[in-house]
């Protein structure tokens, strides 16, 4: 298995989906069954490669890059094909793989209008390559390419298969992220030219930790990175594309967007912004914390004002990603561990919630909360799964959501030395209020959708309970939510080494 460990395994995990896409494109449009099978097999094979990585991963050494490959790519600009994963990237990579498989199974026989499984699955596979690649990239330019690669498929997914307002939403989504990534690219270039020796290699840059850069320059470069990542997360006040994109996107698009694409932003902070520019990170941390907390409260308040189930879940994402960003802003290993856990937990839980919102819409042809009700009567299993996921999302202990939220709040009690403690403790209080609000809007949503009697217009409608593709797609996600909730060390054990490495690097650079 030497070939697998020396980079080929990871390369396979990144590029198998795109190979599958080529095959899918080669199959005539009419042979839908063949297209679906190829797509499913591809995602399963990718997942198998992912499981291979999981099995062969060295858990005693999670802080170091494993399955590394470092080959020449664009020599002229000194950018290399450098990939590798550590304890932070591994869980996110697997999250992306599991979610994609679930998405392909979920859409098995209900492709949104205008149908066309060929196009839809091809885009899904292309998305997976972009996502997996971003988590594995260890070179800034490579990272940029993969980071951008997800834009086009998502743009078309929203624009072609989306709701009534899809054109506006897709363009808005694209423009926001494009703007952010243009500035991010400028920052990458500035980093390249201002560090000696010139390099795009992330580990090398992290090693240097911004040495030789004047504070003001660091802050300016960090601003560019911040905008690129914060728009993707999205942080308040750059979040306005998110509710539109989520509301209009087809179910699978929403799921991938929430479960994985948002993580690209937070991952960018942990992988690039913090280790490479620690001093600027320290200067910016209180502001990031502030925006995170505003996001938590603002997102929660917006949720309470929503009438559309999917839009509500979208705003809850803004709030939840606020917790993740608060954890990152503390710059401590405790906070960042919580943040990485929060990313995975949010991916599983909110991904599930979007699946459920899609299933509800499919059955009732509406997501209007005022028209829904009595799901527990008409489709009890679906109703209980919704309840379960709402509980997980509000941070019920024993389920995954708790371990992302609670430690993130706790970590704000004692941020990294040098950060304003009082400010962060104030953030902590507001974040805690945010959890109460979260319980409020999630339970409110659950109550509106599931409790009571069905509304008269749907009384006689036949509402099908959870069917087979849904069971198959959801079971792994539900099991993971429970498993991570009951035994969080499953994940903390993997992330801790890598996170400590990042946090120590930051602390050392600031101290020295």
């Amino acid at each position: 298995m030497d070939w697998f460990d020396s980079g080929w395994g990871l390369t396979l995990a990144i590029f198998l989906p795109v190979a599958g896409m080529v095959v899918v494109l080669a199959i005539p449009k009419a042979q839908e069954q063949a297209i679906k099978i190829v797509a499913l097999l591809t995602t399963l094979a990718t997942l198998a490669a992912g499981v291979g990585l999981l099995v062969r991963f060295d858990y005693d050494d999670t802080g170091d890059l494993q399955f590394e490959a470092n080959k020449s790519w664009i020599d002229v600009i000194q950018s290399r094909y450098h990939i590798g994963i550590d304890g932070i990237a591994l869980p996110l990579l697997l999250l992306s793989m599991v979610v994609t498989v679930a998405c392909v199974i979920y859409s098995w026989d209900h492709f949104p209008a205008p149908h066309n499984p060929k196009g839809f699955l091809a885009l899904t596979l292309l998305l997976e390559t972009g996502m997996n690649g971003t988590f594995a990239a260890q070179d800034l330019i490579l990272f940029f390419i993969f980071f951008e690669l997800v834009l086009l498929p998502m743009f078309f997914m929203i624009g072609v298969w989306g709701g009534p307002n899809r054109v506006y939403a897709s363009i808005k989504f694209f423009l926001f992220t494009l703007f952010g990534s243009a500035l991010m690219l400028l920052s990458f270039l500035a980093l390249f030219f201002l560090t000696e020796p010139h390099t795009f290699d992330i580990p090398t840059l992290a090693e240097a930790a911004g040495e030789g850069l004047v504070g003001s320059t660091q802050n300016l470069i960090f601003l560019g990175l911040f905008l690129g990542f914060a728009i993707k997360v999205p942080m308040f006040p750059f979040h306005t594309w998110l509710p539109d994109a989520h509301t209009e996107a087809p179910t699978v698009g929403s799921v991938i967007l929430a479960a994985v694409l948002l993580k690209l932003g937070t991952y960018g902070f942990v992988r690039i912004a913090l280790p490479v520019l620690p001093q600027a990170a320290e200067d910016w941390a209180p502001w990031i914390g502030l925006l995170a907390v505003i996001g938590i409260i603002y997102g929660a308040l917006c949720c309470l004002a929503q009438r559309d189930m999917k839009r509500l879940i979208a705003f809850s994402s803004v709030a939840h990603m606020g917790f993740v960003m608060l954890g990152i802003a503390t710059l401590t290993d405790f906070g960042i561990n919580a943040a990485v856990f929060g990313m995975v937990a949010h991916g599983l839980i909110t991904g599930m919630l979007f699946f459920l919102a899609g299933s509800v819409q499919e059955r009732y042809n509406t997501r209007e909360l005022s028209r829904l009700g009595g799901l527990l009567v008409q489709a009890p299993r679906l109703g209980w799964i919704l309840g379960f996921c709402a509980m997980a999302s509000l941070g019920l202990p024993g389920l995954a959501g708790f371990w992302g939220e609670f430690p993130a709040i706790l970590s704000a009690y004692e941020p990294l030395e040098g950060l304003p403690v009082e400010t962060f403790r104030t953030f902590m209080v507001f974040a805690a209020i945010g959890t109460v609000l979260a319980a409020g809007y999630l339970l409110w949503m659950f109550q509106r959708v599931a409790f009571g009697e069905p509304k008269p217009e749907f009384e006689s409608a036949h509402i099908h309970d959870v069917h087979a593709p849904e069971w198959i797609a959801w079971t792994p996600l539900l099991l993971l939510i429970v498993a991570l909730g009951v035994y969080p060390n499953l994940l903390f054990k993997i992330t801790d080494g890598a996170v400590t490495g990042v946090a120590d690097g930051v602390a050392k650079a600031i101290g020295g």
Partner: protein
Amino acid sequence: MNPVFDYHALAPELVLSGAIVVVLVADLLFPDREGLQTSRLASLGILVALVPVLTLAIDGADRSLFGGGFVVDDYAIALKAFFLLVAYVTVLVSADYVGEGDYYKGEFYFLLMSSVLGMLAMTSARDLISIFVALELISIPTFVLAGWRKHDTKSNEAAIKYYLIGVLSSAVMLYGMSLIYGLSGGKVLLADIGKFAAAGDAPPLFAVAIFLTLVGFAFKVSAVPFHFWAPDTYEGSPTPVTAFLSVASKAGGFVAILSIIYFGFFEADESWQPVLWALAAASMTVGNLTALRQTNIVRMLAYSSVAQGGFILVPLAVAQDAPRASFEAVVIYLFIYGAMNLGAFAVVIAVARRTRSGEIESYAGLGQTAPVLGILMSAFLLSLAGIPPLAGWFAKFVMFRAVFEAGGAGAVTLGVIAAVNSVIAFFYYAGVARRIWFEDPAAELAGPARVPAALTVALAMSAAVVLVIGVYPQLFARVGELAVPL
């Protein structure tokens, strides 16, 4: 003194000249109604002309003729290959268009190839006179080509406008050159002018001379505010000619600017950097903002090419502070721009065969009626927008790289303007993609489109470049690196 002829160095031009004569005579002796044989002959001639370019590249030695006025170095070779390939693709996209029109067929290729001959000469021209002659050889045949559809008033308008502006710009440029000649004490070789500029004792009028020369070239590359002719000319000309004008003819102008700056004015940077800075910023911004409002695809691409020209000027505007990176950036950008713009025009030609329309509205639902054309058009346009993993990203990237290597407030400001502009540009490129995929087709156009074989080859070639270079840019990057003459 007898001039020494290095026939190997001149071989690409000689072969192409021969091919031009063959095409003209063959059309005279064996007239065929469709003009397809002539087009095959023309494409064959262009491919044969590539052979000596290859042997020169393998040989690798720099050759200098005519007292240093004609040089064959890696830079010249790389761009000769570029121009011949662009010409080849142009002939491919023209074949059926010209064949189905009711006009003179043989002369079309004759004129096209003559213009290409001017481009080949331009890559090697290293004195003011050669540059001027090459530029006129590029331009004059295209004046006629623009008016090819002589029963169409728009085509007539296109030709007249292009001709008048072309002559005016030549006059301005020539005046500038004559001033340079006088001020420098009778120098025409760029190398000599370079020494004169480096000496630093040039009178203030020298700056005026440089300015006038650059303005002349600014007309050729349709840089704002000298771009007014471009949209009308592009819209009125036959579409293959427009493709040729927007890629090859424009690139010819850029090659002239590259040579004249790098070999001539380089040290007098305070005279040309600000001019190019302003041209670049204005071209990007005005080109993009005007493109946003276009309803005709060719006019939109015309303004987009004005904006793209602005992006190509960006590295030139910082060339003094980052000479190597800027040179590479211009060459790489030209290569990639050539592929993606020709591809876009090839799709426009293919679509217009069926819809007989150049309105952007007519692209509605293309993704359903002709998915392959839809995918290709989206790929070319989004590549022009610079979205990875399509080749356009690398063109933009090398441009930004030059800007950041130069550093300094002026350069970084220009970089930020370029970044904002690439976001604006996305609007109108995506606007077309949106119609292709998000809208339903007009009812009467249902049914598959037939794309002729020659056009298919052209599309495949452009698409291959856009995809392969997007994922593995090293291929072009290496050529760009080799081409730097410093």
